[in-house]
C-alpha cells in the first residue's frame, strides 16, 4: 500500500523530474543531465522492483533523458569566430527545460487554487429566504426543461458512474473466454459490425480486457468473425463471417 502512495506522489514524469531537481537544488536552467538521468532511471528501477506498473510516459521520459545525455556527450562543433548559425546551435536540454518551467508554473497555479478553495471553504452562506410564501404561485413554471432532459440527465449519470464503483459489483467468478465469445457473438449479431477498440476497450479491468482479447482471437481462429483494417493504425473492424460483404 505504501508503495502506491509513493507512486501517486508523482503525477507524471515531469513531476518526478522536477522533484529530483529540487531535491538536489539543481539550477533548472543548467541541469547536469547525466546525474539526473541516472537518478531518474534508478527511481524507475525501484518502482519495477516493487512490481509497480511504470506508466509508459515515465519510460518515454527516460528515453528522452538518455537521448539528451548522449547528445551532450557529442563533441561540440568548434566555436566559429563569427556569429553564424552554429554558435546558436541549440543546447540539447532546451526543450526539456522549457517544458519543466512551464510545468512548474502549472504546479504553482494548482497550489494556489487549492489554497483559495480552502479559504473559500471557511466562508459560510445561508439558504435563500423562502420568498414564495409572500408571493403565492402554485404553478411553478419551468422553462427550457423537458421530461427528456430529466431522463437524459439520469441516463448520463448512470453511464458515468465511476468505473471503480461498477467494478465493485462484478461477480468474483470471472468471465470465461467461452462466455466472452458468446457475448461478443450476441453483440455482433445485434450490430453486424463493431470496432475492435469498442469490443475490447469496454473491459473494466485488465483481466477483462485480456479475456475479451483472447475471446476475439479464438473467434478469428474459428473463422466465425472477420477483421479488416483500411489503413495502418486505423481501428480494426470486426464483422460476423457472412456479414462481411454487408459491412
Amino acid at each position: 500500500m505504501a508503495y502506491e502512495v509513493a507512486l501517486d506522489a508523482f503525477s507524471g514524469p515531469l513531476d518526478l523530474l522536477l522533484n529530483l531537481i529540487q531535491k538536489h537544488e539543481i539550477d533548472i536552467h543548467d541541469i547536469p543531465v547525466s546525474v539526473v538521468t541516472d537518478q531518474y532511471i534508478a527511481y524507475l528501477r525501484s518502482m519495477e522492483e516493487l512490481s509497480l506498473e511504470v506508466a509508459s510516459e515515465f519510460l518515454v521520459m527516460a528515453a528522452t533523458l538518455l537521448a539528451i545525455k548522449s547528445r551532450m556527450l557529442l563533441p561540440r562543433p568548434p566555436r566559429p569566430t563569427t556569429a553564424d548559425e552554429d554558435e546558436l546551435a541549440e543546447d540539447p536540454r532546451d526543450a526539456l527545460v522549457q517544458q519543466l518551467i512551464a510545468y512548474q508554473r502549472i504546479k504553482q497555479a494548482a497550489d494556489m487554487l487549492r489554497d483559495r478553495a480552502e479559504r473559500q471553504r471557511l466562508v459560510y452562506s445561508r439558504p435563500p429566504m423562502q420568498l414564495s410564501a409572500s408571493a403565492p404561485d402554485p404553478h411553478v413554471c419551468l422553462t427550457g426543461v423537458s421530461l427528456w432532459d430529466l431522463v437524459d440527465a439520469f441516463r448520463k449519470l448512470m453511464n458515468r458512474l465511476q468505473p471503480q464503483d461498477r467494478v465493485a459489483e462484478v461477480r468474483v467468478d470471472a468471465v470465461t473466454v467461452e462466455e466472452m465469445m458468446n457475448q461478443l457473438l450476441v453483440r455482433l449479431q445485434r450490430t453486424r459490425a463493431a470496432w475492435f477498440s469498442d469490443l475490447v476497450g469496454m473491459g473494466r479491468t485488465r483481466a477483462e480486457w485480456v479475456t475479451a482479447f483472447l475471446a476475439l482471437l479464438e473467434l478469428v481462429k474459428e473463422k466465425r468473425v472477420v477483421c479488416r483494417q483500411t489503413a495502418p493504425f486505423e481501428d480494426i473492424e470486426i464483422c460476423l463471417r457472412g456479414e462481411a460483404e454487408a459491412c
Partner: protein
Amino acid sequence: MLTPMAAALEAVLFAAGHEGMKTRELAELFQVPEEQVRSWCEQLQRVYEERAGGLAIVEIAGAWQIVTRPEFAPYLTRMAQRPAAATLSHAALEVLAVIAYRQPVSRADIEAVRGVQSDRAIQTLIQRHLVREVGREDTPGRPILYGTTDTFLQVFGLRSLADLPPVPEEADLPRHVPLFSHPAVSPRD
C-alpha cells in the same frame, strides 16, 4: 465597530438561517452561561436597530435569528416574482433526476451517485416545490429521505410516478457489469 464576540454571534446567527439558534444552543456553542448569551444577543439587537439597516435581530419561539425588516418586504416580493429563477441548473436537474428515479433517497445516496456535494441543489428543488422530505431512513443518524411532489408531476406532465419513462440503460446496469453492453441509444422526441 462590533466587539469580537458580537461579530462571532452575528456570523453564527446568519449561518443558522431561518431556524435560528436557541439561547441554550448559543451558550453551548460559546461555552458561556445562558444569561451571558442573552445579554450579547440583546446588545447586538440594539446595534442593529441603531444602524437602521435592512436587517434586525429577533427572538422567535425562543430562537434568535436575523430577519429582514418589514419595510423592505415590497422589494422581496418583487424578487420572488423574478422570472429569471424559472430554469433549473444542470446540477439541480441531475439531483432531481436521481430523486425522481430512486425515491425515497437520502442526501448521501444522491451524493454517492453524483460524486459531488448536492445540498444546495436539494435546497433549490425544495424551494421550487419539486422535491420534499418524505421521511427518515431507519439507519444511524436517521437521515432525511427525499421524494418528488405533485408539483413535480404537473411540471413534467406526468399522471403518476409510474409514468416516468424507463431509462434505457438502467435495466442493464445493476448487479453485474455487462462488459460488452451496447451503448444506449435513447429514444428522443
